[in-house]
């Protein structure tokens, strides 16, 4: 089932990428990133069965990081919304150099 799992993982990842590319809502883009992380997790798990349990441990770490990221990221979005009254990234360019 390795090949199939990687197939699904790749498709999910690509969908996540397309989502990031086509959407402008910060929260949705954020969720797309979560989807990409999940897609990667899937391949980790699949590889773990084929090559050893370390993959699962890695998934564990990815999830932790994702949780942390969600917490901080959402806090940033809230702060940004409070400041700009929008989460539409087209209207936000505070990263301009």
């Amino acid at each position, binding site marked *: 089932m390795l090949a199939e799992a990687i197939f699904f993982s790749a498709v999910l990842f690509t969908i996540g990428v397309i989502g990031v590319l086509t959407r402008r809502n910060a929260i949705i883009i954020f969720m797309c990133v979560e989807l990409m992380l999940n897609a990667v997790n899937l391949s980790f798990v699949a590889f773990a069965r084929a090559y050893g349990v370390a993959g699962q441990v890695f998934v564990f770490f990815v999830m932790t990081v994702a949780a942390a990221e969600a917490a901080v990221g959402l806090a940033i979005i809230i702060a940004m919304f409070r400041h700009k009254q929008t989460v539409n990234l087209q209207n936000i360019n505070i990263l*301009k150099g």
Partner: protein
Amino acid sequence: MLLQHEVSAAAHPLAGTVVEWLWLLPLLPLLGFVINGLLSLVPATVLGPGDPDMAHGADGAHGEAGHGVAVHAHETADEHGAHGDDHHPVVRHRFAWLASIVGPAVLAIAFGLAVAMFFAMRGAGGGEMHAPFVQRYFSWMPAGTFHLDAAFQLDQLSMLMVLVITGVGTLIHLFSIGYMQDDPGYPRFFAYLNLFVAFMLVLVLGANYPVLFVGWEGVGLCSYLLIGFWFSEKANADAGKKAFIVNRIGDFGLLIAMFLLFANLGTLDFVAVNENVTRLAFGGPLITTICLFMFLGCTGKSAQIPLYIWLPDAMAGPTPVSALIHAATMVTAGVYLIARSSVLFSMAPVAGLTVTVIGALTAIFAATIGLKQWDIKKVLAYSTVSQLGYMFMGVGSGAYVAGVFHLATHAFFKALLFLGSGSVIFAMHAAYHHTGSHEDAQDMRNMGGLAPYMRVTWILMWIATLAIAGVPFFAGFFSKDEILGSLFLRAHDSTLADARWLGIPGSAVLYGAYALGLAAALLTAIYMTRMMIYTFHGPNRTGEKERDHLHEAPWIMTGPLVVLGILSAVGGWLNLPAITSFLGPVGALDRWLEPVVGESALRVTNGVAPEATHSTELALVGGAVAIALLGIIIAAVRLKPARLVPKAQSPEEHGIERVLANKYYVDEAYDRVVVEPTVGLSRGVLWKGIDQGIIDNVLVNGSARLARGFSSLGSWVQSGQIGTYAWVLVIGVLAVLGAFTIR
């Protein structure tokens, strides 16, 4: 560490005698410098007696030059203005009494020591002692194959110089006690003067060129400090700076000469150089180059063409300084250097001729300028330049003893002349001071008829004038005559005569120099007589009120004058020519210096001592005497002191007189040709052009601008649109993965 004797010194005949205390000679004045220097840092000055009678004739030092007066008052920290008032308070330093003990005392002790050494040396064989007494103290600069010791050496030449320096130095120190009495910088003055003597002694005692160079530059430093002693006046500070920088040009030459010596001989010790120099080709380009560079050093220190310009300006210093440094000792260092390096110069006839020519030209050139100066000290300054030219004629033509002889006699009579002029200025200023006048106390047009007021000074200065003019049986007569005579004798049958100088036969050059020397002697007699007549004779031009305040200087000043007067009168006994054998032993100095310069002198004259026939000698002497008397008579007859008017009412000069009064405009020419272009180039081209324009603006900030251009491009790309970033990122990922895929 100090006084680590080298074993070989122990075998010297002078070992174990008083000469072992050689190191003490420069150390004594140095000690004086330290004590006086510390005193001078004590800021406190006390107000001396303000009573004009008490200060009568005693605060003359204020008016060194016209400008010196104002300066002085301002030196006291809390006194402003009110200078025009009649009785401003006299300012004396709190520790002046201590300085006036320490300053001359160290010199007197040093002189005593030197005399003791002289007798030790005579006792040890004097003229027969062939190796110098060398004392090595410590290794100064060990660097690879280069070994340089801090070492002193004493030989007959050094001994003579030490005696002159400490002897004349002591007298001038004593004179200064009176002259500088009321100067707030009194301890500072003695500190500098002591330091000068210390360096001067290092100069003449050094056992190798670098140690000599220490003294060489050290005396330059003291000269700088003393010329600018009244530094609050820009002209004085300028003069000091000019002296130092011009001297540095000369020092450059001396340095190069040292480098050449080391590169080719591998040593800089006098003894070793003299032993090894014969390895170089006689008269070759190398030895000539070395000597010419060395002579460049001498032209700086001894004020010869083209570097003489600093010496007349140096008269901005206090008069004792002019006497000690700018007449008797420091300026003769160049003569000493050539005598010291006589072996080198005797190997290079072309260089010797160059020295002679430059000396002759300087002698006549300065003498013509001296004809038209009104400042009494300027007359003496140009006279010094001219007399130094004589000395160089002597040492250049291989008559080393004659040059050194003139050095010694000149030290006596020129010191006397300067101190005498100091005494005059002192009196003049005291007079002007009492009446609150601001006239120039140094201008001869303001003097006249001073003889009745200052008898001692008058008589003594006449002695010195006769000496410098070359009137028989005064000191200058013998020494000047010897120089001219040896020029004449060496014009045939000597290495110099056989050499060619810029294509001209050497003998022609020497005859020419002899002629110039005679002409300069005539001019010397004229301008010196002129100075005496304008100063002491004719009607008095100081003014009615001032006349009452003219007084002779105190004994502390006249005392040294008397001693110098005696020396000027009898100094010729040092080295009597054969023709005057009835006066005493002939050629004492010749014999004394024979171990040092004898070999070199013989090399110049092809191994035979030049002997003039009795008739030739008589003719030469007769000619010189005639010229001296002629000069005095011309001056006495032609000059009309009665027609002179004080400086303030004097008309402008015209024509050649004006050119002479303005010293041929040489200073102006140097300014235009050397100084201004250098400064202009530095500012306009180097600094503003290359430094700020090209390097900084174009290259450095240019690359900064370029970088800024690139970064503004980058900044434009950073739009802040995260969507765009995502696109760029994904395309980047595609590209990277694509690269892997295709491979």
